[in-house]
């Protein structure tokens, strides 16, 4: 399986994303933001970082990079796209995911491990996460507070588009377990077609026990399983 990991000026989790994919035995390569084509790709990862220095708004300028037209087309054709942290911000700015990420409610940059509850297994990004498993993964952001208007939130709930929520170690969605003030403790969502997802936490930084947690692997395993099913379906 081929993963295309985008690189914008000041992306800084692109190497981690490539490393994580290769660690699981799949192929990954960088795609420069000025490239108009993704090449041969089964899945696109929009990585974390501070694309374009976060000028204007996080992700606001990156969304107009030439490569984002290709990502939009890839997503429109049903391709899997995962945005992590700044990648999540880029995808909301690009309109590929609803809502927006705003300044953390305490105005602090949070760099810590948090707990995540998977709200649904019904997505290519969550299907392999064991039932009831609470994921321990790191966050590192200053503007990760998920916001959407009431109508959008109602749609997210009705369509089961909320994928991950911040919780305590026992899986309770408490306010104190919410690091940034995100509405409904939302850490990650998908689009209505369920092929584009974004999350503020960094699964790619938690794929090996050496790093303190390998819970992020479940998100990658879910993507691998979805791509494998797709390949089988295409061959049949």
């Amino acid at each position, binding site marked *: 399986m081929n993963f295309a990991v985008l690189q914008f000026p000041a992306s800084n989790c692109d190497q981690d994303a490539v490393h994580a994919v290769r660690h699981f035995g799949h192929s990954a390569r960088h795609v420069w933001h000025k490239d108009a084509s993704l090449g041969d790709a089964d899945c696109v990862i929009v990585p974390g970082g501070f694309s374009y220095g976060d000028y*204007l*708004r996080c992700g*606001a*300028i990156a969304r*107009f990079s030439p490569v984002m037209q290709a990502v939009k087309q890839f997503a429109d054709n049903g391709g899997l796209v995962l945005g992590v942290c700044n990648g999540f911000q880029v995808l*909301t*700015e690009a309109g590929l995911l609803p*809502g*927006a990420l*705003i*300044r*953390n*409610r*305490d*105005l602090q940059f949070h760099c810590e491990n948090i707990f995540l509850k998977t709200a649904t297994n019904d997505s290519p990004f969550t299907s392999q996460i064991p039932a009831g498993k609470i994921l321990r993964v790191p966050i590192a952001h200053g503007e990760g*507070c998920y*916001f*959407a*208007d009431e109508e959008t939130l109602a749609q997210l709930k009705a369509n089961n588009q909320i994928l991950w929520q911040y919780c305590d170690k026992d899986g309770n969605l408490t306010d104190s377990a919410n690091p940034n*003030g995100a509405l409904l403790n939302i850490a990650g969502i998908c689009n209505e077609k369920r092929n584009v997802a974004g999350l503020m936490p960094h699964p790619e930084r938690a794929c090996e026990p050496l790093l303190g947690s390998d819970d992020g692997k479940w998100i990658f395993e879910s993507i691998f399983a979805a791509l494998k099913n797709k390949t089988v379906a295409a061959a049949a």
Partner: protein
Amino acid sequence: MKAKIIITPKKAVVDPQGITVKKALEHMGYTGVAGVHIGKYIEIDLAPGTDKAAAQKAIDDATHKLLSNPVIEDYKLEITD
């Protein structure tokens, strides 16, 4: 000629900077502050001879697409001589 754009957070969006500054003002003894909202001011210099109506339309479009995010922000645009 200049385009002046004031971008403010929408009322429904929590503005932690505004809340913090309001508290600081109160702490300093300034009374009667009912709310503080922190946004952005952008000034664009327009080339001499630019058509005002055309500039208004183009910059309004650009503000909607890039300079502001309509999900979380409102804006006011003014073109001045």
